[in-house]
């Protein structure tokens, strides 16, 4: 167990509840994510992972509870304040969610055009730099449909980090990818982390990936975080559902 941190957590979720109609999705989530760390929220399908991450960025409002981002409670904020807070985030979507009517260059430069006064040369330099961080070159003029799944994820990350966010959210980054591409995306997350020193939040059901990239894993089950800690600690956590979840992978993988 780590000692009490001196700096406040970058993201702090406190007693978060959310339901859709009769369906209770989140039932009292408590989670702190330290600045500069990578936290993986692990859980099966329908455990509420995506709903949780959407609360962190203010796309959904909770029924009850608080979400602090960089020291501010974002729950009572209106659209304008939320837009300001969202600039601290970059998000990498499951299917990359690149704008398919735009080239890679236009995708990555999009936020710069919207939120900065940079000249075209400065924008070009910045796009080059960010594509360099994710290990891509000579793809600027291609359209998303012409890229492989792994490359699209990388462009998605380049687009997410172009405004130098403090936090990068990854929504199921390795779902639906083959093992080699999965490895490639894991490396991308680790490399981006070490190069940019951002706080990363990854939601995933991929145990192998989670253990590879995480400083901390939080296991979400039926709308609650039932176990959390560094990956190696979690492996020995006695919680039955967690063990069941882990077992399936260790049986399959080792």
């Amino acid at each position, binding site marked *: 167990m780590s000692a009490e941190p001196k700096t406040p957590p970058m993201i702090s979720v406190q007693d978060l509840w959310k339901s859709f109609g009769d369906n209770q999705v989140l039932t009292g989530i408590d989670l702190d994510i330290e600045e500069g760390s990578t936290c993986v929220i692990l859980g099966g399908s329908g455990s509420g992972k995506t709903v949780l991450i959407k609360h962190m960025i203010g796309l959904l409002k909770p029924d009850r509870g608080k979400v602090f981002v960089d020291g501010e409670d974002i729950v009572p904020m209106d659209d304008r304040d939320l837009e300001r807070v969202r600039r601290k985030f970059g998000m990498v979507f499951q299917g990359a*969610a690149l*704008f398919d009517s735009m080239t890679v260059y236009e995708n990555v430069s999009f936020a710069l055009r*919207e939120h900065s006064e940079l000249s075209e040369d400065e924008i070009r330099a910045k796009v080059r730099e960010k594509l360099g961080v994710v290990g891509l070159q000579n793809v600027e003029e291609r359209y998303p449909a012409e890229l492989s799944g792994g490359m699209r994820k990388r462009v998605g990350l380049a687009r997410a980090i172009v405004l130098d966010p403090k936090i990068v959210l990854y929504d199921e980054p390795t779902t639906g990818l083959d093992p080699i591409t999965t490895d490639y995306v894991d490396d991308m997350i680790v490399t981006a982390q070490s190069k940019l020193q951002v706080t990363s939040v990854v939601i995933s059901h991929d145990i192998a990936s989670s253990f590879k990239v995480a400083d901390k894993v939080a296991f979400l089950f039926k709308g609650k975080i039932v176990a959390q800690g560094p990956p190696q600690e979690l492996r020995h956590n006695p919680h039955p559902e967690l063990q069941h979840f882990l077992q399936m992978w260790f049986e399959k993988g080792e």
Partner: protein
Amino acid sequence: MTTSDLESSPKRNPLVGLVEGVGNGVLGVFQTVGGLVSLAVSVAVWTVRPPFRLQNLFAQFDFVGVGSIVLVALTGTFSGMVFATQSWSAFELFGAESLVGPTVALTVTRELAPVFSALMVTMRACSAMCTELGTMRVTEQVDALETMAVNPVQYLLVPRVLAGLCMVPLLTMIFDTAGLFGGFFVAVPLKGLSVGTFVLRTQNLLAPADIWEGLAKGAVFGFTVTLIACYRGYNAHGGAKGVGQATTRAMVDAAMAVFIEDYFMGLLFHP
């Protein structure tokens, strides 16, 4: 068979089912209309808020307006010709052929031009709009915009709805011109009415108010059909199938809305 199965079997009062069905239908209509009104308000608010993205706006003007010119001109010409042919054969019975000109002119400017222009825009532009927005929604591109602190209503919907509002009246003017030309072509060269009679009669009976009526209708229809297409596309869910369903509903709703609004706007202008 369990007891609950028995209870829901044919013995159930058919009247209850009927009332339920009608009730759900009415609720659905209210829900859609409510959703449209709230989206319209949101579009209006985001229209007047900076930043103004003129490039997006002109791209939509081009797509909705310029792209529909040929289609509307052709539809207009043939509508005018059809109307002239039919009214000629009726007026011929009591020797009132000279009224073909004003009849075509009034029908085209007041009714046919705005209605058909809006329907053409619905078919050509709104279907594409709805599919595009729906695809962006289900592939999370709309969420991506939002996480990049760009309001999707402002970025995507405002230029589209404004294009409908501004371009359909302009297309209505083109339809007016083409329709009159079609009517003239049938009445004068084909049927042998004199140019003077056609022009003079039309000038006497067609007032600027008739043209304004058509343009006002065009603006209202243009706004409505693009708003409906945006609403359905923006709220699409459930993958490719969902996008298809959204587009079907958008087309049906938009076409119905045009005819319903047309009736009520007619009442407004001719109480």
